[in-house]
Each structure stands twice: as structure tokens, then as C-alpha cells.
């Protein structure tokens, strides 16, 4: 099944810096979603961007989508220690209503 693939796998940054994660996918999609998972917990939905959208903002989050390159990026601005988590991208393919997840990015924000 189709999967998003995040890059890089692990990121360590200082509090206040920006964190950027990338995700690529293989086939045409309906939408792409980003989730956060704190250690040992369930996933929390952050943002959804549809295939006809190029950029979306939510608070300190900025997501871009480039369907021609089949890629997305998640930017977290002015990071905080509480942003330490794993971040997953997930895609929904046209005609298939299920989320397919990437393997996740570990982000550590150092106070």
C-alpha cells in the first residue's frame, strides 16, 4: 500500500529554532495529513492539506504540498520543549479512503 516517507528520520534542535520535516509519496493523493505522537501515546492530528492546496498554516505549523514532486514539508516555527515528539505524515489515495502512514520523524527540542 502507499506510504508517506519522512526525511530526515531524527532531528535535534535548540528551543526557539525552526524544525522542518519532509515527506514524499508515490501515487496521486486526495489529501495529506500530519500527526504528532508523544512518547508511548496515541497520535494527534495536526493538519490536513488537500491535493488542490499548496500551503496551509495552523498556529506555529506550516505545511506545504507539491503534487508535481509528490512531496510535503512540515515546518514548526519557534520550537518549544513540548514539541519533542515523533511526527508522521499520512496520505489518502484517490479511491482508497484509508490513511497510509510513513515511519515517522523523531524531533527533540533541547531547552
Amino acid at each position: 500500500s502507499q506510504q508517506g516517507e519522512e526525511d530526515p528520520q531524527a532531528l535535534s534542535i535548540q528551543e526557539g529554532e525552526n524544525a522542518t520535516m519532509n515527506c514524499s509519496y508515490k501515487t496521486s493523493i486526495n489529501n495529506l495529513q500530519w500527526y504528532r505522537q508523544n512518547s508511548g501515546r496515541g497520535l494527534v492530528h495536526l493538519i490536513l492539506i488537500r491535493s488542490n492546496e499548496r500551503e496551509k498554516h495552523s498556529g506555529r505549523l506550516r505545511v506545504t504540498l507539491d503534487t508535481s514532486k509528490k512531496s510535503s514539508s512540515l515546518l514548526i516555527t519557534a520550537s518549544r520543549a513540548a514539541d519533542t515528539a515523533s511526527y508522521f505524515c499520512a496520505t489518502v489515495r484517490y479511491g482508497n479512503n484509508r490513511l497510509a502512514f510513513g515511519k515517522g520523524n523523531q524531533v527533540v527540542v533541547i531547552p
Partner: protein
Amino acid sequence: DVKVTQSSRYLVKRTGEKVFLECVQDMDHENMFWYRQDPGLGLRLIYFSYDVKMKEKGDIPEGYSVSREKKERFSLILESASTNQTSMYLCASSDGDRGNYGYTFGSGTRLTVV
């Protein structure tokens, strides 16, 4: 606050036991899903349901079954637990037009089969 509740955070079962993992959502969502999460493999879809009494296989249904007798409850059943089913199990639900809304996840059940 909307919620997906999984009945247990941690569970230890013996090989060969029949195991029930329960999931309840209070959002009147139509769609419910069971994933398992393993290091290096990410989240993989086991089963999902779009309506009461309806179920569809995901990517890794072998060794599992599900039950959805009521809209708010979706149960995952391990017919005969094996050690390779040791994993984190995550339940999720979503509303309406399938795939067009974000999923709400439960906190997960970490199952160990010994």
C-alpha cells in the same frame, strides 16, 4: 472533549490465549480503524469499519478479527495470541466522507504476548 478510549494501556497475555482489545468513541463517528505500531515499521492497518456490522481487511489482517455491534464500539480480537503479535495497538475513528477528515486516535494498548 471528544475521545477515543482504549480499555487497557498495558496488557500481558500468554501464547494461545484469545485476546480482546476494546475501543470506544464518543463522537458518533462512522469510521473506525485498528492499527499496530512497531519500531521501524510504522503504523500498519489491521482492520477497519465504515458502519455497524461492517468490516474490511486492512494490510495485515492475518491472525486478527474484529467486531462492531454498536456504532461507538470496535473490538479487535486476537484469536490465538502469538509472540509476533506483541506490539502497540492503536484505535482511531473519523467522521463522514472517508479519508477527508483527520483521525482521532486512542492512547494505545501495549500488548505483550509471552
